[in-house]
């Protein structure tokens, strides 16, 4: 296998720009997805069946359809309907956050439900309201338990952002494809892209591991 390092070098600045965009889109997706996911997860826990229904539908739809399809719907349907024209960056942020929110919601719901009932009862018996005990007692513990599955979800999100290349969002994979389209070579662009994603996910899992250690009470 002969690798042409000269074309990798030629595309290095584009890969760098792509990496920055991938990082940006992933951070936006993670942050918005976490906030939305938390709200949706709490929504699904509402006892009233009718009130929790929209949240259940949301999770069913976004978890049950491929992100690839969602990207096309967002890019050619939702974003032009709101902004008037297509916008790759907006598509990236919207599609990634909406998709990850569904998974994060289930992770948080699992985390919340895994906390012993006694914790809520103890908090309530101390005179805290339901929402205050949720905020100060249940959620911090649930969040800690949710970190390993969240870490999984965020890594998936970083890698899934590569699907945005299909609608010409200039992230890492887009430049990989562009390079492949110019030179008709497959190893150089795709191995480079794979390496970049590997480094990104390594850094991300390292950061989340640090967070896990800091929150550890043992």
């Amino acid at each position, binding site marked *: 296998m002969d690798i042409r390092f000269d074309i990798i070098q030629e595309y290095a600045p584009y890969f760098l720009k792509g990496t920055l965009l991938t990082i940006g889109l992933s951070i936006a997706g993670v942050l918005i997805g976490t906030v939305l996911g938390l709200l949706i997860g709490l929504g699904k826990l509402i006892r009233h069946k009718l009130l929790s229904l929209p949240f259940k539908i949301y999770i069913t739809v976004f978890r049950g359809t491929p992100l690839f399809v969602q990207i096309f719907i967002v890019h050619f349907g939702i974003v*032009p309907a709101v902004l008037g024209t297509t916008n*790759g960056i907006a598509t990236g942020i919207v599609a990634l956050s909406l998709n990850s929110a569904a998974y994060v919601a289930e992770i948080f719901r699992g985390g919340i439900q895994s906390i012993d009932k006694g914790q809520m009862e103890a908090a309530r018996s101390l005179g805290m309201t339901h929402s205050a005990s949720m905020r100060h007692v249940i959620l911090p513990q649930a969040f800690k338990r949710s970190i390993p599955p969240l870490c999984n979800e965020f890594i998936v999100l970083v890698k899934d952002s590569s699907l945005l290349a299909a*609608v*010409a969002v200039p992230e890492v994979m887009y430049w990989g*494809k*562009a390079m492949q*389209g110019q030179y008709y070579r497959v190893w150089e662009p795709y191995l480079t892209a794979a390496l970049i994603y590997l480094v990104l996910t390594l850094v991300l899992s390292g950061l989340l591991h640090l967070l896990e250690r800091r929150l550890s009470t043992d």
Partner: protein
Amino acid sequence: MKKGSLLFFAIIFAFIFALSACGSNKDENSSADNGGKASKKTLRVVTNAAYAPFESMDKGKIVGFDVDLIKAVAKEAGYNVKIENLGWDPMFAEIQGKNADLSVSAITINDDRKQTFDFSNPYFLSTNEILIPKDSNIASADDLKGKIVAVQNGTTGQDAVSAILGKNNKNLKKFEDNNLAIMELNKGGADAVVADNTVVEEYAKNNPDKNLKYIEDNKNFAPEYYGIMFPKGSKLKAEFNKALNTLLDNGTYAKIYKDYFGTEPDIDKLKAQAK
């Protein structure tokens, strides 16, 4: 618990059987499709079926000018063909890796590609055209400067626009295929699409409600010739060139051409390009 896991395994096995059944069914279909004598070798032809009228999907079948032509040429050369829709980029990788025998997908013959692949004699003449909204003020390729242009990644349309805007300019949006590029134009994400004339004209003709028009630019966009693409050093090249020449001479080519484009092909110009 035991009962449950047994059921689980039963379901898994049922799945595997169903899937493997699918696989063998497909094989039977394709061999039956090719019919013919067992002595005829079946060639694996790969294409990107998102390029009407050259190749597109019609209810699960690959149809188009290229498909009819390659079937006729292969028949003349004494082969069966099995056409697979792989997509544009994977198609090149398959041929480069010699995993497929040939590719026919409106591929323009150019020097870059010749370094890695072998091509037949030209079988089609084409030029790039610019697809724009009817109210656009773009009048020639030079007007594309500063405008956002959508193309299919890895096409000569992309090369032509790169030459005007500069390579990897941020205003150049590269899509998986022309349909997506044109959709981007329709949704306002691009000011123009540059692609082969037949695709552009076919789209504008079939979608009058989109209010699109197309313009030529012979100064910036040189004529291009499509060729059948083979792996480097393929022995099929000579056989297919001979068969193609026969079809050009005996009127079969002209008949297929008229079926799809409604006009007479310029056979002399094609033959003049063959060396």
